[in-house]
């Protein structure tokens, strides 16, 4: 009988904060500058240089803490974490150790049509290190310190995750949260969001945790899932064979899709933490926290409630809009003009997303501005444009970035809604197809659609279909009663 195992997973996520400047000095945090463009005495760890805390970092930490229902620590100190590596010129990283700014929170993760509450153990502030490039040929490493001192929040979950898919859903939810709050761009490709995973197995029903391994370098959602799946398979076969899992740090090699041991990491991990005397204590009063909470943007869950309850959108539509904070902001701007939530959602998520996708564009580079899309929807609702005409106006808007009004003027595309003009079109059509109309009047109601189609054709699609429909019904009624 082979034993069944359950996996126990916890994630440690680092997010780079969307501040203008570094955590302890005024150099820029911009990504993609020249190597060593954003360096200064503090970044270089020059003797006598003193760190001064960036207020915005604390505000961002409090925002994420409150958004994840954490307790905010009143009395905070920074700690020095010592290790030697050339990407860290001071010889220590300034971090928080036993006194993280946020603790004991939770994040609600929508996963497989259910909501899972994942515990947040802690969130702390720290500085990033620089970047190394290794050249084994010349036996040298090249160091770029632009990233050194960029502010990070490390978010440590409780070991509440049970499957790789659940871990990836948690990570997506966390990314969504930091992006909605505006505390980080959450860009995994550029390294603004990085993930390490702790994983152990235990027999199903067992409460005690097994021996865990830590997998580093999981820089995409897919890699998180694949690395965890690989590691579950590896640990399962070890345990089935009666062997032990060794507690160690592993590196995920995405090319080979395997995890490899990072030997030597364990014995050197003696960081000799102590409070950093260069940074005075940080005292967070409740008034400050309340002020920050008052200025916080709407969170994904609040948006979901708003979209489904007040705007009447389906849960599915809400999820599509909430996938990125830009989507929902764009939707809101469209809605502000047209006041029609369902139409705004459909035009944004079906038409616009479809066209953007076909043209490999992102919403940020949409040739159609939200106000113009709102105006287009309003023209449909005001029956100035038929649905069909609106689609061709939309195409033109996408191609030229012009407003719908400009395109309508230019093309003379206005819908015919004048009752006299509609009546004339109907009369002309009836005289053209008089025998068919006789048959319709004598009871062949199936011919109704034929007449609507012919009137629309005569108007080249410009007639208001609802008015055409009514005018034909009136004409038949008149004939039958005469």
């Amino acid at each position, binding site marked *: 009988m082979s034993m069944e195992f359950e996996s126990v997973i916890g994630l440690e996520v680092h997010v780079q904060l969307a501040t203008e400047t570094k955590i302890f000095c005024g150099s820029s945090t911009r990504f993609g500058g020249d190597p060593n463009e954003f360096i200064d005495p503090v970044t270089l760890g020059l003797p006598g240089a003193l760190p001064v805390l960036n207020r915005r970092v604390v505000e961002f930490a409090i925002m994420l803490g409150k958004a994840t229902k954490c307790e905010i620590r009143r009395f905070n100190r920074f700690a020095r974490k010592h290790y030697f590596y050339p990407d860290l010129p001071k010889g220590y990283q300034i971090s928080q150790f036993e006194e993280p700014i946020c603790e004991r929170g939770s994040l609600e993760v929508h996963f497989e049509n259910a909501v899972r509450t994942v515990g947040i153990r802690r969130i702390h502030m720290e500085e990033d290190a620089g970047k190394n490039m290794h050249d084994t040929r010349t036996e040298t490493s090249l160091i770029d310190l632009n990233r050194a001192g960029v502010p990070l929040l490390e978010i440590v979950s409780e070991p509440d995750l049970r499957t790789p898919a659940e871990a990836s859903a948690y990570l997506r939810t966390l990314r969504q949260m930091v992006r909605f709050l505006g505390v980080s761009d959450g860009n995994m490709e550029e390294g603004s969001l990085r993930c390490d995973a702790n994983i152990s197995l235990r027999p199903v029903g067992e409460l005690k945790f097994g021996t865990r391994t830590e997998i580093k370098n999981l820089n995409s959602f897919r890699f998180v899932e694949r690395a965890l799946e690989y590691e579950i398979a590896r640990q399962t076969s070890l345990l089935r064979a009666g062997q032990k899992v060794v507690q160690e740090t592993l590196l995920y090699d995405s090319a080979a899709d395997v995890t490899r041991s990072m030997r030597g990491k364990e014995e050197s991990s*003696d960081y*000799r933490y102590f409070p950093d005397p260069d940074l005075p204590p940080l005292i967070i009063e409740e008034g400050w926290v309340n002020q920050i909470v008052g200025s916080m943007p709407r969170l994904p869950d609040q948006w979901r409630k708003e979209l489904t309850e007040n705007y009447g959108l389906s849960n599915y539509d809400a999820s599509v809009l909430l996938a990125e904070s830009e989507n929902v902001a764009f939707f809101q701007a469209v809605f502000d003009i047209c006041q029609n939530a369902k139409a705004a959602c459909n035009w944004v998520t079906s038409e616009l997303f479809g066209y953007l996708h076909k043209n490999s564009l992102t919403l940020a580079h949409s040739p159609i501005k939200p106000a113009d899309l709102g105006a287009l929807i309003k023209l449909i609702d005001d029956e100035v444009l038929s649905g069909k005409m609106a689609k061709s106006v939309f195409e033109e808007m996408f191609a030229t970035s012009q407003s719908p009004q400009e395109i309508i003027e230019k093309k003379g595309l206005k819908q015919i809604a004048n009752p006299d003009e509609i009546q004339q079109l109907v009369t002309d059509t009836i005289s053209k197809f008089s025998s068919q109309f006789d048959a319709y009047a004598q009871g062949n109601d199936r011919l109704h659609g034929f007449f609507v189609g012919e009137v629309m054709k005569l108007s080249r699609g410009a007639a208001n279909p609802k008015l055409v429909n009514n005018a034909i019904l009136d004409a038949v009624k008149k004939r039958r009663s005469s």
Partner: protein
Amino acid sequence: MISDNDVAKIASLARLTLTPEESSRYAAELSRILEYVQQLDSYSVEGVEPLSHVHGASNVFREDTPTPSLPFEGEVSTNAPDKSGRFFRVPLIIE
């Protein structure tokens, strides 16, 4: 007492290579320093919070406004042991 093993561990954490003579000299010197500090053990610190900062300051912030960085060429790169283009260059740090 600081043992030779303690010295070896500290040296390895500090990436220092010590000769056996240096090792035993540092073991003796570090032990003497610790003995000196051990005098503090004669005071009772019951109920006294550990002190991390001697001045009374708290909440010292900078606003999130960029200030000029140092140019790499010039004092920065000439004070570095080695460089390559706009990078600092160091001996290979992976096996």
